[in-house]
């Protein structure tokens, strides 16, 4: 039995949820889905019933905004209920904490942030990156059950099933650690701008832009023209020009847009590890020796203050 953990926002399943269904179907075997949350989660459970034969809805309003500990306890009880040997979660901020806790709780193994997962006889094997995304590993779980966190975008979204599934509710009993954490206000990341990890085009500004004003004029300006997400290097965030939630790299976000433009970015390995899976990379930097040029499809050795305005004009002038 494969259990798929469905993340949702106010009853709407997140993009990754249907990708997990595809992954589960590729693994083969019985599939069930679990949705956590109160009545507001009901629609998500109903939606998933169109894709999998069985959906367990842990109907507890405290789970609408709950600690990792609490969510882990809820999921652990469902895993036990359905007898899952494999649990699939989306690798995001939430899955990153719950997956390992769940695996430890159940005495199993964790295959983390995988690009692909398959079964070979009794083993579960996955493909994932390591060493700051420089190495490609094939790994095998040596304990059970196997918790797998799946990289968003690794699988296509599933098509609906032919027959509708059943939604069953399930209560949960919590332990002391589940009561320990008090969560406060949740604040959405600002800006009304395209979310970085989902953007098709990302413009990243580096220290070579010179100062915060130039960043705004050149990087944000170009991003506006392209309806792109805005990213920064660690150096820019350290300098205080931009907030750290724009940071791409080892200690920031990993992005893989179709087009990534690096303006005044030197290309330290820690940064490259966060963007090297991008489709097309453009680099503009005045230092021809900068490492960013090794990963660029198109490189311009020049002054960003001249090249970026010229590029904006050229893009505007394209038919």
């Amino acid at each position, binding site marked *: 039995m494969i259990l798929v953990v469905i993340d949702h926002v106010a009853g709407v399943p997140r993009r990754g949820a249907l990708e997990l269904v595809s992954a589960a179907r590729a693994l083969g075997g019985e599939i069930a889905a679990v949705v956590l949350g109160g009545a507001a989660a009901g629609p998500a459970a109903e939606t998933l019933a169109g894709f999998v034969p069985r959906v367990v809805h842990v109907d507890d309003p405290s789970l609408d905004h709950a600690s990792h500990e609490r969510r882990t306890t809820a999921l652990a009880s469902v895993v036990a209920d359905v007898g899952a040997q494999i649990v699939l979660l989306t690798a995001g901020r939430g899955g990153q904490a719950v*997956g390992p806790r769940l*695996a430890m709780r159940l005495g199993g*193994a964790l295959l983390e942030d995988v690009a692909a997962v398959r079964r070979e006889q009794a083993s579960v094997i996955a493909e994932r990156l390591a060493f700051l995304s420089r190495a490609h590993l094939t790994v095998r779980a040596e304990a059970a059950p196997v918790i797998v966190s799946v990289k968003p975008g690794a699988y296509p979204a599933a098509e609906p099933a032919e027959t509708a599934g059943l939604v069953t509710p399930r209560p949960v009993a919590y332990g002391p650690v589940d009561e320990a954490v008090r969560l*406060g206000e949740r604040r959405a990341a600002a800006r009304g701008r395209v979310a970085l990890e989902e953007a098709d085009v990302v413009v990243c500004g580096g220290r070579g832009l010179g100062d915060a004003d130039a960043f705004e004029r050149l990087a944000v300006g170009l991003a506006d023209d392209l309806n792109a997400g805005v990213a920064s290097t660690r150096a820019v965030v350290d300098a205080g020009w931009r907030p750290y939630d724009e940071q791409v790299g080892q200690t920031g976000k990993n992005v893989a847009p179709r087009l990534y433009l690096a303006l005044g970015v030197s290309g330290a390995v820690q940064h490259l590890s966060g963007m090297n899976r991008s489709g097309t990379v453009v680099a503009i930097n005045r230092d021809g020796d900068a490492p960013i040029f090794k990963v660029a499809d*198109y*490189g311009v050795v020049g002054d960003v203050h001249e090249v970026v305005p010229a590029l904006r004009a*050229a893009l505007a002038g*394209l038919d």
Partner: protein
Amino acid sequence: MIIATYVKHVPDAEARLDAAGGRIEVDDHAYALDGMDEYGVEAAVRLKEAGLADEVVALAIGPARAEAALRTALALGADRAVLLETDDELDPLAQAAPLAEATRACGAELLFVGGKQADWDSAALGPAVAEALGWPLCDWTTELRLEAGEVAAVHDVDDGSEDWRAPLPVVVTTQQGLNEPRYPTLPNIMKAKRKPLDRRPLAVPARVVTLDAALPSRARRGVRLEGDAATVASELARRLRDEAKVL
């Protein structure tokens, strides 16, 4: 109060990786303290400097060379260090139980773990050891205060940030923005040689094994555009539209 901080000895960002026969090889001299763990060591040392803790203990799991990461932590202000020594490549979950035990053994009520590890590219150790300890976890922490036996923090969630509070004992995983780590100054590196470092052998089974490893290199076009800004810009725009087809 005693604070424990986990440090990992990982390949330096500039290290050369070689994939020989399905294993990643790195020169022994190309390792350093994981940058993510620096935030944890810094946070622990600042709490001690503020008089909120009595002792900072640095913990590491790894082969003998991992001692260098502990010496760096000692140079950054930790008081003593423990190396759980093993030559095995252990996945984060396999490390969690021994780390939990070492944390309990040193009497810590607060454990810092780097938000992500630079060798496994994993964020699992913090949550896994929190589970092994039975402690709550504040992950991807960007602000942290200790108030009357409680941790009051701000941490990242999927779409933004959130306030988090829980009474000690707690596990905190770190990320950029939590603080600005200090450099280990040369005088402190020299003093750190005299701080206590215990080595204890470790033998636990791995829960994930690596079957194969490769270093894929993605071929990039590597086109260099030359000329004045206007010429370069119009050629770039044209190529992005017609050649790369991304516009």
